[in-house]
């Protein structure tokens, strides 16, 4: 017992003697089941691995919360969630200008880390499911995107596939998938159900991968995803249903890079981001050396 107490005191004292190093970059990321994680890995890290020291949290809100309380932190996440942290301008490379993630810049694609958000269905959507998708892609639906913090698709890209009448008595649509898109889906469902009494739409999150798995298991009508479906997943779906997965772009999202409000940094390049998240760069002071 005495030994335990002694050990406890010694370890507490040794912990107490450690000093916070404000220069260390503390990088936060999403968990690896997230579509945002996959997108970041492909778009920013050129498919290289995240460093093992990168901390991962369940949910964009958790990442933002952690960054807002940690003066040496950096994180990324869907722009609709950003609050209480400082968003950085992003440079594609050293020569290009630093771009802010605003509506125009995301829609005209000058912001380098923007992406599409998707709906997936098994085969072309029919009946009530198609009606809902068509409505979401119409002006009222796209306006809601903006309200929630995402960006509408450019006019020419709002393509609604399918057109069959489908089973007439279907009154419930289930939608499952990306956590990034849950709020958007819920807002769409609210407005849509208000206009059309009798139709029920259920929206749940869980992550893009979870949604795709649900689609493959036949547990959902529409899968929301913040990343493209993988080849293996498409193959599984085809084997199970004999139909291809149909991809529908429904909105655009900019991936915001953010730091603590007291951080003097205002812009960051993709190269610098890559160095931070692959573990090559661990110091805020030396970050400027990378162009």
């Amino acid at each position, binding site marked *: 017992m005495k030994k335990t107490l002694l050990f406890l005191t010694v370890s507490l004292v040794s912990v107490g003697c450690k000093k916070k*190093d404000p220069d260390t970059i503390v990088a936060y990321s999403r968990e690896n089941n997230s579509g945002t994680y996959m997108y970041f890995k492909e778009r920013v890290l050129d498919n290289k691995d995240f460093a093992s020291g990168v901390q991962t949290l369940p949910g964009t809100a958790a990442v933002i919360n952690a960054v807002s309380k940690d003066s040496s932190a950096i994180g990324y996440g869907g722009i609709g969630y950003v609050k209480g942290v400082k968003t950085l301008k992003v440079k594609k490379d050293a020569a290009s200008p630093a771009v802010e993630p605003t509506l125009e810049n995301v829609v005209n694609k000058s912001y380098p880390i923007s992406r599409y958000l998707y709906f997936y269905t098994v085969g072309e959507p029919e009946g009530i499911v198609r009606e809902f998708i068509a409505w979401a892609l119409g002006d009222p639906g796209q306006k809601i995107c903006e309200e929630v913090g995402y960006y509408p698709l450019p006019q020419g890209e709002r393509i609604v596939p399918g057109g069959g009448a489908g089973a007439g008595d279907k009154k419930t649509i289930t939608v499952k998938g990306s956590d990034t898109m849950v709020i958007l889906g819920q807002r769409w469902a609210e407005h849509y159900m208000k206009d059309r009494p009798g139709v029920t739409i259920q929206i749940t999150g869980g992550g893009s991968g979870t949604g795709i798995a649900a689609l493959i298991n036949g547990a959902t009508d529409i899968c929301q995803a913040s990343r493209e479906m993988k080849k293996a997943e498409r193959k599984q779906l085809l084997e199970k249903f004999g139909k291809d997965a149909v991809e529908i772009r429904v909105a655009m999202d900019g991936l915001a890079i953010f730091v603590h409000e007291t951080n003097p940094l205002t812009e960051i390049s993709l190269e610098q981001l890559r160095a931070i998240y692959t573990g090559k760069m661990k110091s805020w002071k030396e970050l400027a050396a990378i162009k």
Partner: protein
Amino acid sequence: MPRSSDSLLLKGRRRPLERVAELFIRSSGLIVIASLLLIFIFVGKEALPVLTSGEVHQEVTPKSLSVPQENGEYVWQPVSEIPKYNLLPLLVGTLKVTIVALLLAIPIAIGAAIFTSEFSPQWMREIIKPIVELLAGIPSVVIGFFALLVMASWVQDAFGLTFRLNAITAGIGLSLAVIPIVYTVAEDALSAVPQPFRDGSLALGANRWQTAWRVVLPAAMPGVFAACVLGFGRAIGETMIVLMASGNAATLSLDPTESFRSISATIAAELGEVVLGSAHYHVLFFLGAVLFVITFLLNLAGHWYVSRLRDKLQGKSKFKKASAVGL
């Protein structure tokens, strides 16, 4: 006369309701055992391909789970061009946080148990005990969120740590979940020590502290130790608190001020995304099996130790009891 005494002892014809009740109780017992067995079989079945299947072995083998990768590092990176699975960082992380949590929880829980059973007045005991037990009812996700948002900042400021989320933060959060379990079981064990033990000790001139520490605690040791084993089981398997407060970085480090990734949090975070039947899927179940085996072995060892303690105590307690009763 014999007939009436039979009916008094309820040995005659049993009432149908009784029979139903007995059947119900008996089957509940069997259901518990059966479900445990089924879970074990399911986890084992899904984990087995890691050891046997050639298809899985193209990506991961039992050897690659434990030896360092080519660059000499231990990496857990399942979502990658070349998936890398290494158990060691997860195992070390899990044990690291469990040890921190137990170092905090056990002294507090046992101290509180000794206080309420030996020192506190009755009315205070009746307040403290339900409150501590209420702590057990707080959902772990709430504790985890609290640790992530509030406690992490406190710990960081108090110790001046570089990383906000680390094994100390998670360990403190975890200890909140462990304390009620250890406390309740230990308190029951201490209270169950017969009053003559205390009377005898006090009569022989020992003060209350000596009585509690040298007589009551040793007498209750089997129960107290069992409480600690239960606490360990809870700490090592706890998921939400660790998932939220640990930072989940799979680094191989013994430093409690660094972020870590635990086995349970890894399963929780990755199982939702994994492609059914893939190597990753089987590895996650293998992790579950590892956790199961650790808990099982520890429980077994705990059981063995407790029964040894009990035997030892009973050997001695004859004398003690005799002297106490002699009063």
